[in-house]
């Protein structure tokens, strides 16, 4: 269940993924090497060589790839907003259950 839900909430209802700032990204691909969840994909022959391919694979609240990013090109959603959203969804689920 852990790969499709987080705290009982369906993963695709939670907005948590890295956003790449292409003005800063130098395509060093450290984030790709680091992330074991295959969130990123390398596009060797295209102008934009790195994309967030599998946002729902990203572990909710994990920001570890940004620590490997020399040019500080990765950002994440606001943690408190995400927490509140998860709580709201859980409340709705309790109401429906």
């Amino acid at each position, binding site marked *: 269940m852990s*790969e499709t839900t987080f705290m009982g909430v369906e993963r695709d209802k939670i907005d948590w993924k890295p956003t790449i700032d292409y003005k800063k990204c130098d395509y060093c691909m*450290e984030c790709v090497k680091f992330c074991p969840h295959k969130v990123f994909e390398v596009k060797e022959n295209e102008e934009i060589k790195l994309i967030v391919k599998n946002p729902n694979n990203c572990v*909710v609240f994990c920001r*570890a790839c940004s620590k*490997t990013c020399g040019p500080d090109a990765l950002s994440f959603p606001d*943690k408190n907003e*995400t927490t509140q959203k998860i709580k709201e969804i859980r409340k709705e689920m309790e109401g429906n259950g």
Partner: protein
Amino acid sequence: MVENYAVLPCNGLDKCAGAISRELAIKLCESAKNEIICPVFYRVAEAKYNKIACERTLLVIDGCPTRCASKLAAEKKLKTSRKITITEEAKNRNIELANNLRLGENENKLIDMILAELSDAGGKNAQSSDKVQFPNEFEYITYQKDKFIFRLPKNAGFFFNENDCWAYVIGNRARIGVTDFVQKSLSDILYFFPPDIGAKIDQFGEAGSVESAKAVVELISPVSGKVVAINEALEQKPELINENPYESGWIAELELADFEEDKQLLIGCDKYFEIMKKKVDEFNV
């Protein structure tokens, strides 16, 4: 002023943060009895610096999160006593670094601030005297995969998040740390970066990080509150986290802000055990 350090700086000459690392190292050596290890020359002339590195305590200065200086220290099996990352220091102080290889006003200001903080060692480590006695031993359930054994404490008072971190709660205090899954995924932990004493941390906020030659992992706090103590033993012996991340390898103590609220997004030992087992099976630890 810090003295008798061997200073191993990043020498990233094509980045502003690298230029700051270099300047900070020079200033540390001009104003006190410290010595620089040149990362470039170290690669080809090991003997010159091995002696300095062994005789002195090692201060590593990384420019950016690529951590070239740290990786070099790990590669040479040096024991790092203190570590600074320039981009992190700038972020913590809300200083915007220019994209320029010559140092400007902000960059010099940051260097002076770091130098001042290094001189003021001890001040920020003052811990709260109002201590809660936490037990030192727990009972465990275990899961084995190949030769690896993953422990999980089953004592009442332990709570987990799905980010592989735990909180052990007594009254309005909690000790926090990482689980066996984290320490085994990282293998040998080389550095420990504690949160600041007095810092207010939200639930799921960063409460320090641990680093091995493989990666850096942040501790995603299961609870919200104010940091009242850190495990100082880890600064000299981060390997305690590998030995037992629940007992001698705990990371910080927090005065809880709203545990009843936090509890809504925490799970108990049984539920986390199932999640951990799945993660262990899916990953090549």
